[in-house]
């Protein structure tokens, strides 16, 4: 592991639970890690540029900001059509995540997952209906799994 990778890793460990809530958070991190503040900022900017950091900001609790219904819609579509269909579904403004995942036959025939958030189950089901309409005859089976309880939500935790 290069020195740069090691510093990146130490920055992940130091910030995975959150950025310090002080006026100069990158300077506070630098002090904690025993490196220069400029180096911390350069490394973080490089990780953001490469996509190792997806974004920096607030991670809201969906329930607390009014999205009390969260439905994981799952679809069985033909493998040869999935990339075209997935791209169209991912572009819908109410879909926050869309993935191609493997089936787990026989219990699980679904290969396309699209997360839909709303203020009520009815709203989510209406939006899921729009996805069904978009898929048309390519939809061979579908289901919607509503989250009924958050059991854990800590995010990434790698060992320090």
């Amino acid at each position, binding site marked *: 592991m290069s020195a740069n990778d090691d510093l*990146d890793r130490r920055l*992940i460990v130091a*910030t*995975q*639970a*959150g*950025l310090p*809530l002080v*006026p*100069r*958070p*990158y300077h506070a991190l630098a002090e904690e890690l025993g490196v220069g503040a400029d180096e911390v*900022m350069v490394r*973080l900017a490089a*990780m*953001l540029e*490469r996509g*190792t950091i*997806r*974004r*920096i*900001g*607030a*991670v*809201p*609790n969906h329930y*607390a*900001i*009014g999205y*009390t219904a969260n439905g*994981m819609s799952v679809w069985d579509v033909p493998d040869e059509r*999935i990339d075209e269909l*997935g791209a169209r579904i991912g572009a819908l*403004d109410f*879909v*926050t995540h869309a*993935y191609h*995942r493997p089936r787990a036959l026989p*219990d*699980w025939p679904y290969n396309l*997952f699209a997360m839909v*958030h709303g*203020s009520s189950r009815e709203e989510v089901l209406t939006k899921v209906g729009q996805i069904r309409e978009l898929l048309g005859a390519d939809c061979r089976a579908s*289901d*919607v*799994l*509503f*989250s*009924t*309880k*958050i*059991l*854990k*939500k*800590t*995010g*990434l*935790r*790698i*060992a320090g």
Partner: protein
Amino acid sequence: MRERAAVPELDAVDRRIVDALQGGFPICERPYAAAADSLGIAEDELLARLQAMLDRKVLTRFGPMFQIERMGGAFVLAALAVPDADWERVNAAVNAFPEVAHNYRRESDLNTPFNMWFVLATETKDGIAEAVRKIEAATGLTVHPFPKLKEYFVEMKLAVRNAA
């Protein structure tokens, strides 16, 4: 079983903060001051409001969101079919693993047997198989991993709504 989380009150400034700061937080000497300036509030007010929203669990975190795949690690969605009678034991066993980043109970109209859905986050790709093995040993149940084969879109685009 539907979650009945009380929605904490957010005033107009809190909402603007949540809407504006889901990404794009600056990397500079005084980033909170810069972000506060664009929101038309003072740096100390932004810091106090972020702390208060973290304390009230309106925010689960404030900071960088990592894509560990870019560092050689992996995030994998996985499911378990947990019998109701065994729910509490299995829930405690699964949540005890630091590799479990999120865990949700999910129920469907079609009564899929998969009712516990969690995300494994590990520092290496091999860590996933190891975590699956440990969770199976701890629970006595088969873990069904659903690794992403392709991601079509991921962007947080949820504006605060009706939250007061």
